[in-house]
């Protein structure tokens, strides 16, 4: 019995940090409507700076002073980020905001390694809370008790702040209707900046308070951000009480999940989240959102099928690509195959995201499932390559059918978070179910049959499949189904009013996109000769998003160009520098802020300007990332 009580208390102690970070995210979202992916990064910087300060400053005052100083310093960094980056993207679609802050996260990850080195850092114990308390033979660290008390205290302080101060009233008002607050003469700029600073302060404080419990390391940002997403989604975005209750719930699920299902402890939390989202899509304490903002910007150029000249050009480009083996060496051909595979992956997400308006943040799950499908079929059933290639993607298809069914019940940010969570479930299965998936060691030794074994043959295979997939998906955009899908993206209300079962159309699109991604994953498994959990990880999902965005969300086939440019750049960067994340993150932010329409979107815009140079571009063109409202 005492053991369970101690386990419960440990859970409560973990909840404190989680609550701090989650409440910060929630407050920021409430007012600015930005889901700050970089919140985990601020948490991590908080921990690192606190570590450095506590090493320098001695004594009890030094320690506690360091914790607060670290949080204040990070809050200052937050202010700079808000003024330099976020102010430019408040009116951008949610997807752009998530991506920009993700880019920031990537940069921070490299910067942290650059400054503090790659090793784990073990911090000092907190003065006054070094020991443990005996509880019927079980030890409870006294620092845990401190954290258990701290959580509700912070909740109380935040409550007072929001209920009893003028600033708090303004924040609550802005959370309900920021336009009205602006109309009443409140300086919105500084309100947003101060809210962001408070949110970041809470994140950094959460990070700093972790150092007596946990080692500080450079991957702690992603781990916390996924958990925080889960917390705010369960509790309800924008609700602080919700963040507290959900933080406790998630921490307890973690604490007891390990005892009950040691193999699938991670899954438990995500399952609870999925259930909450389906029963109460806006979270336990959240309020239903008003009409969601359109995910892609408003397309001004109507989409049309290619003219015969453009078709010829596309075929010519394909022929040129097919001639690569005539003059390129094996390394270049392997790179070419990889790019072709990522074209498949990118166009599959593009179909879902641009045509269907459903920005999946976990699309890699279906890519990876396709890859694992191959691994199971080839290694366990011993089937020949051609059979595997046909059947392997079915695993991606099945995954998409199951997860897609739930995911399409939601839209916007919630859709993004749910797809991310599902991808994490799949990832954790691949990671934890060692007996079947090999866990972290993956499944090795998947080699193509002799007919596709040489680099040039494999390149042609990948190129051929990529071309086929691109053409097929493009045809679908201009099929009756494609029109129906675009209709559901533009107006759910109108779709339903003309007899369209919108959820079922979106679900179908999800399955098509997932299966296509699975085809890419299947080829990828053969290209690499192995499958790892990374093949369905977050970073791969984000790669896909960046490829689509780079090509242009509002284009029909921009993802092809996006994939080629991004992948080539990525492979080249990784071979050139150790700081690829830093460059990549900066690159992502640059696209979002400067080229929100992507490469193909830019070209289309320029072409159109030239075509009709006399009438100036419509206001929508002039303000490309202004929201539709």
């Amino acid at each position, binding site marked *: 019995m005492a053991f369970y009580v101690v386990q419960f208390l440990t859970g409560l102690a973990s909840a404190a940090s989680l609550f701090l970070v989650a409440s910060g995210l929630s407050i920021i979202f409430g007012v600015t409507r930005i889901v700050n992916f970089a919140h985990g990064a601020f948490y991590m910087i908080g921990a690192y700076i606190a570590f450095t300060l506590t090493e320098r400053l001695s004594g009890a005052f030094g320690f506690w002073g360091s914790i607060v100083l670290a949080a204040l310093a990070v809050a200052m960094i937050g202010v700079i980020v808000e003024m330099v980056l976020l102010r430019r993207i408040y009116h951008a679609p949610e997807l752009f905001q998530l991506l920009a802050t993700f880019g920031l996260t990537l940069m921070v990850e490299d910067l942290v390694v650059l400054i503090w080195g790659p090793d784990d850092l073990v911090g000092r114990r907190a003065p006054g809370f070094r020991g443990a308390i005996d509880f019927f033979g079980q030890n409870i660290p006294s620092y845990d008790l401190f954290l258990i008390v701290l959580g509700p205290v912070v909740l109380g302080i935040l409550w007072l702040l929001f209920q009893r101060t003028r600033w708090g009233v303004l924040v609550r008002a802005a959370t309900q209707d920021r336009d009205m607050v602006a109309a009443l003469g409140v300086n919105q700029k500084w309100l947003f900046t101060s809210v962001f600073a408070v949110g970041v302060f809470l994140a950094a404080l959460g990070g700093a308070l972790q150092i007596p419990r946990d080692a500080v390391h450079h991957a702690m940002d992603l781990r916390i951000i996924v958990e925080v997403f889960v917390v705010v989604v369960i509790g309800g975005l924008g609700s602080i009480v919700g963040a507290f209750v959900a933080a406790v719930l998630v921490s307890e699920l973690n604490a007891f999940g390990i005892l009950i299902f040691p193999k699938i402890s991670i899954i438990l939390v995500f399952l609870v989240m999925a259930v909450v989202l389906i029963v109460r899509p806006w979270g336990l304490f959240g309020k239903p959102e008003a009409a969601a903002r*359109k995910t892609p910007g*408003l*397309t*001004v*150029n*109507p989409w*049309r*099928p290619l003219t015969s000249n453009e078709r010829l050009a596309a075929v010519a480009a394909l022929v040129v690509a097919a001639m690569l083996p005539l003059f390129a060496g094996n390394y270049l051909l392997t790179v070419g195959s990889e790019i072709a595979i990522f074209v498949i992956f990118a166009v599959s997400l593009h179909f879902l995201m641009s045509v269907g308006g459903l920005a999946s943040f976990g699309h890699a799950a279906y890519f990876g499932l396709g890859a694992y499908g191959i691994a199971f079929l080839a290694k366990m059933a011993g089937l020949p390559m051609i059979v595997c290639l046909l059947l392997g993607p079915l695993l991606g298809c099945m995954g998409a059918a199951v997860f897609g069914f739930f995911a399409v019940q939601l839209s916007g940010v919630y859709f993004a978070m749910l797809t991310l969570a599902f991808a994490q479930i799949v990832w954790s299965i691949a990671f934890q179910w060692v007996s079947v998936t090999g866990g972290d060691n993956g499944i090795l030794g998947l080699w193509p049959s002799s007919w596709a074994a040489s680099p040039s043959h494999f390149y042609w295979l990948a190129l051929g499949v990529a071309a086929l997939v691109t053409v097929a998906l493009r*045809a*679908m955009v*201009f*099929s*009756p*189904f*494609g*029109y*129906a899908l*675009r*209709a559901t*993206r*533009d*107006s759910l*209300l*109108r*779709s*339903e*009013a*003309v*007899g*369209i*079962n919108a959820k079922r*159309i979106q679900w*179908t699109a999800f399955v098509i996109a997932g299966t296509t991604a699975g085809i890419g994953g299947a080829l990828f498994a053969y290209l690499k000769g192995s499958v790892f959990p990374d093949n369905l990880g977050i970073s791969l999902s984000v790669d896909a998003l960046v490829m689509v965005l780079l090509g242009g969300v509002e284009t029909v086939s921009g993802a092809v160009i996006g994939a080629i440019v991004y992948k080539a750049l990525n492979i080249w960067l990784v071979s050139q520098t150790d700081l690829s994340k830093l460059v990549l993150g900066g690159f992502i932010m640059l696209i979002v802020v400067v080229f929100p329409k992507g490469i193909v979107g830019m070209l289309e815009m320029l072409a159109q300007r030239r075509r009709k140079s006399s009438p100036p571009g*419509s206001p*929508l063109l002039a303000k490309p990332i202004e929201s*539709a409202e």
Partner: protein
Amino acid sequence: MSATPPLLAVEGLTKSYGGIHAVRGVSFSLRAGEILALIGPNGAGKSTCFDMLNGQNKPDSGHVRLLGEEITGRKPREVWRLGVGRTFQITATFATMTVRENVQVALISHEKQLYNLWGSAPKFDRGEAGRLLELVGMGGYADRPCGELAYGDLKRLELAVALANQPKLLLMDEPTAGMAPRERVDLMRLTASIAREKSIGVLFTEHDMDVVFEHADRIIVLNRGTLIAEGSPAEVRGNPQVQAVYLGEGLVYDARHREGTSA
């Protein structure tokens, strides 16, 4: 042998939000080819009533029947399949698609080709889409992106979309709200002529009394959720109860006067 059931029969429709009785026991019916106006002051329950007719909102009790068939509480898309088209107070269109594509979507849905993955949508019922657009006077706008249209044109597009499944009944929620006086008259004349020609029943809510009295065959008046009057425009205009709760300030004649001078 009983007489054929009316196109639309509404019986004892009731809906409350918490303690507020938005709609209380409303009953009325509508014949094919008839144009019926639903009027009432702000907050009378018009929109709530309207939304319950095509399944946008579920009634607490009461019945809605289309040609005798119970459609109460059916989903909007099911009601549409039974031949009920609708336009919205705030237009709902597919903003990134062209005007023609908007109509084509409705035609694709009408012909149950929504899951056709390989056909060519740009060629789908192009002729029929063109005819519908001509009908509402939007023929010249077919290739324009819908997001660029003026508000009045959007209303006309909505009408074309609503007509795509050859409806028996058209529900139009404030069809002329936000339009210029000239456009209002045009749109309602158009609607009336289409309705008469194709024998479509039309139910519309409207704040503009000129539009109501000029085009409605019959008017029903809602106040605080209850039906207080029903009859021809002349009867409703002369009804003292209606005048008391709704037209008591002589709004009709004021409005007439204003519009008359401005037009």
